[in-house]
């Protein structure tokens, strides 16, 4: 029997009850959330019971207006057998952005989590090598958080003879 969004939702609700919430298919694929502490249990269940054995994508999103849920980690999982995609997200407060690492489940999560740490400062507990990957090690901020704006292109205080600014 091939898997449908309804059966996935039922099985998840049966297993985790209130812990999984906000099911929606508005964006084309089934998406849902759970508390950050549950992320490994949910993904292990999806992996073992529902065949979501492929981690397509892992990234962070920063919603500065969501109190105590400013940082969100979004997982895109894929079941190759039934060809179903799934979006699963967990939210954490920016003051304590702790999420359990998925590297034990997916080798591919290693660098994707490092990238998410690099840009959002999300602390993946248990990660084997959680350090910056694309930015320089000395960087002391997390550049994809909304509090770091891009440089104002109309600024005039910068003297740059070579490139004709200032």
């Amino acid at each position, binding site marked *: 029997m091939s898997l449908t969004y309804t059966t996935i939702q039922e099985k998840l609700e049966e297993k985790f009850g209130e812990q999984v919430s906000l099911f929606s298919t508005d964006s084309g694929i089934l998406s849902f959330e759970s508390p950050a502490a549950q992320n490994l249990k949910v993904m292990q269940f999806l992996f073992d019971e529902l065949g979501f*054995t492929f981690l*397509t994508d892992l990234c962070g999103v920063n919603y500065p207006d969501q109190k105590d849920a400013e940082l969100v980690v*979004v997982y895109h999982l894929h079941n190759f057998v039934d060809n179903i995609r799934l979006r699963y997200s967990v939210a954490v407060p920016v003051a304590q952005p702790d999420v359990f690492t998925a590297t034990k489940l997916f*080798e*591919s999560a*290693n660098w994707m989590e490092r990238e998410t740490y690099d840009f959002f400062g999300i602390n993946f507990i248990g990660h084997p090598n959680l350090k910056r990957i694309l930015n320089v090690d000395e960087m002391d901020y997390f550049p994809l958080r909304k509090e770091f704006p891009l440089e104002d292109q109309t600024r005039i205080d910068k003297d740059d003879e070579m490139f004709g600014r200032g």
Partner: protein
Amino acid sequence: MEAHHNIVLPEGSIEKTTTTLNLGPTHPATHGVFQNIMEIDGERVVSTEQSVGFIHRAFEKLAERRNLYQITPITDRLNYCSSPINNMGWHITCERFLKVETPKRVDYLRIIIMELARISDHLICNSIVGVDTGAYTGFLYVMQYRELIYEIYEEVCGSRLTTNIGRIGGFERNFTNTAFTKLEKFLNEYPKVLQEFENLFTRNRIFMERTQGTGGISAARAMNYGFTGPNLRAAGVDYDVRVAHPYSSYQDLDFSIPVGTTGDNYDRFLVRNAEMWQSISIIKQAYEKVQSFKGTEAEIFHADVPEYYLPKKEDVYNNMEALIWHFKIIMGEIDLPKGQIYSAVEGGNGELGFYLVSDGGRTPFRLHFRRPCFIYYQAYPELITGGMLSDAVVTMSSLNLIAGELDA
């Protein structure tokens, strides 16, 4: 003056029996900006530490302040061996997000361009594998056919490498007759060249011995490492976004997905070659379908989306409505709908995904690129450990790593 200190050697470094070798970041054999600090025992690789990010350009941050059409040139610079696929992938993401239906003719024209891009991508990768195993001829010989592909791009969009081809809804202009003539020339001449290229390598004893059994990976490991594209298919998993989640009317065409068994360098080479044959067949089918449009249908090259598709210049000068749309698009005054989408296309080296989050503003709230080679390059230490250093070089090129895409 600062006092000079003697070099402090790490503990145990005198007794150790392995050699540390720094390969890259700029090395002729890495074909891109990749650094590997390897521990080698004689010529055997014991371990390696990768570092990436040397050409990181903060595309995801930049995209947060750009309108949709301004993000297309950014996508050019991901996998620059097949920029049109990235461009189209981005347009398709936007169209899915904005619920724009594209006309069939646009879909087929896109398929032609995307498959040409796939051929040029695979051609580079496979011929570079040849170069790294000591056969320069193939590389030099096929270059003129990549040139032909670039001439077709040029005819369609005006540029060659970073193409910025197409718009949301279709193409910026209709294909000229010259473009079709060049396409026909390519379809006539290229199969013979590809056959010769295959003859040069596929059963070549030296090539086989260099590539068979090196850099191999099992299907299960490849999936766990997030492999996609030809690298995953070489390991025996028949996952192809064009079939699994069709876009741009790929479901109308008939093609097969070549798979390998061992996931080694040789299988990756064979899978790419077989895919090029499939691409030729796809282009032929799509071209036939394009030719079957008659009358006004044969003139359609974009969907009717005034909010996102720039009007023609003469309309802008002579027509109030077109002028307004032109202004609104250029100034970026169009609010996006709220929501999020993940949309993927089969890029030259794997599943190229775009995760777009919009909060209803004029620019994406967040845009994440799923870059296939960023994800599968993690497996590189596992692929090369225990093998020869010279095989590590071949493995690197047969993975089709593109620094621009990896570092985003």
